């Protein structure tokens, strides 16, 4: 078990390094392709309006303690009252918005593009790795692992006697897939920070659900305990000045 395998240097030169380089390049390529494919459609006026309302409600929430109680209450009523408050969405309308989103072909198209730009390169790379590099022991992890990791790290080699820390080329591909995320966020900037898992989550939620986020904002506005900060300001000013004097 413990004896070391001797790996050919050709494996390093023709499997390990090319695989990693290709993974990096494909990541960069994917970034630019998805940037090109991002359609710049005109934003829907209604969605834009709702987004602005949410931003205003958030501003009110974060600045709540800097205005007198009366003004705060007036603004809160403006946002959350049940008749014509900006954040209040009637029940039936909420359903409509959902249905509308599903029927809007542009939205679905955009989603498709996003998912395709994620899926196609990944499956292509995987197929490429499978085709060229299947069955190599490509690398060795410099720390010991238990037998449970065998399926994960030695995907593609059916040998039960090889030490678990040896990694097959296919598993090296997976290691790269997860580990290069940090590198991408460094070389491609923050736009790439939204990684695949987050995209997956978005897919589940099928886009931005305006009605729900409006309702969330409304609830959080409703439960704010208002406490006007300015009456205590003189005290604070005094403290600060005293500290300066000392």
């Amino acid at each position, binding site marked *: 078990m413990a004896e070391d395998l001797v*790996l*050919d*240097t050709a*494996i*390093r030169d023709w499997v*390990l*390094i090319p695989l*990693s380089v290709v993974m990096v390049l494909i990541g960069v390529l994917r970034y630019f392709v998805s940037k090109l494919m991002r359609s710049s459609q005109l934003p829907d006026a209604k969605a834009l309006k709702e987004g602005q309302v949410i931003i205003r409600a958030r501003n009110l929430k*974060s600045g709540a*303690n800097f205005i007198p109680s009366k003004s705060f209450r007036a603004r809160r009523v403006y946002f959350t009252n049940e008749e014509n408050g900006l954040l209040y969405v009637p029940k039936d309308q909420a359903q409509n918005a959902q249905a509308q989103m599903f029927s809007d072909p542009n939205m679905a198209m955009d989603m498709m593009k996003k998912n395709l730009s994620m899926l196609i390169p990944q499956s292509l790379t995987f197929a490429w790795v499978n085709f060229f590099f299947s069955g190599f022991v490509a*690398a*060795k*992890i*410099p*720390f*010991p692992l238990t037998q449970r990791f065998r399926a994960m790290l030695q995907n593609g080699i059916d040998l039960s006697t090889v030490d678990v820390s040896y*990694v097959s080329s296919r598993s090296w591909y997976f*290691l*790269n897939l*997860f*580990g*290069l*995320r*940090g*590198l991408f*966020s*460094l070389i491609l900037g*923050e736009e790439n920070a939204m990684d695949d898992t987050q995209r997956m989550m978005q897919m589940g939620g099928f886009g931005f659900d305006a009605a729900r986020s409006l309702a969330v904002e409304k609830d959080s506005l409703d439960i704010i305990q208002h406490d006007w*900060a300015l009456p*205590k300001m003189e005290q*604070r000013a005094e403290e600060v000045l005293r500290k300066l004097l000392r």
Partner: protein
Amino acid sequence: MDPRGKEKQSDDLQIFSAENLQSNMKSIYYSRTFLSIVGGVVAGIWGFTGLMGFVFYFLVMAIASMLFAAKAKFSVRTYFDSWNRIVVDGFLGGLMSFVLFWTFAYDIVHIF
């Protein structure tokens, strides 16, 4: 690594600009990622194996935390809303990158 904005802080009331805080946290995240990659390469070239490498990672991260604190002139409250932002946040985030680059460098230098 350069905290761009300053936030005022007081005892009972939090007054800070969320955007500046965000930007500070982002620069911390970038430096941690960068450090974990560089640390991985260094650990691989030096040929650390087993527990030693992880100890090295945590050492690098601890030193990074200390340097962040020094960069903020030890008045963390000026730039962040709590010490955790500097000391704890993102401590394990770079581990995956570290392991990858550690393995990569180690294999290239020592295995073949």
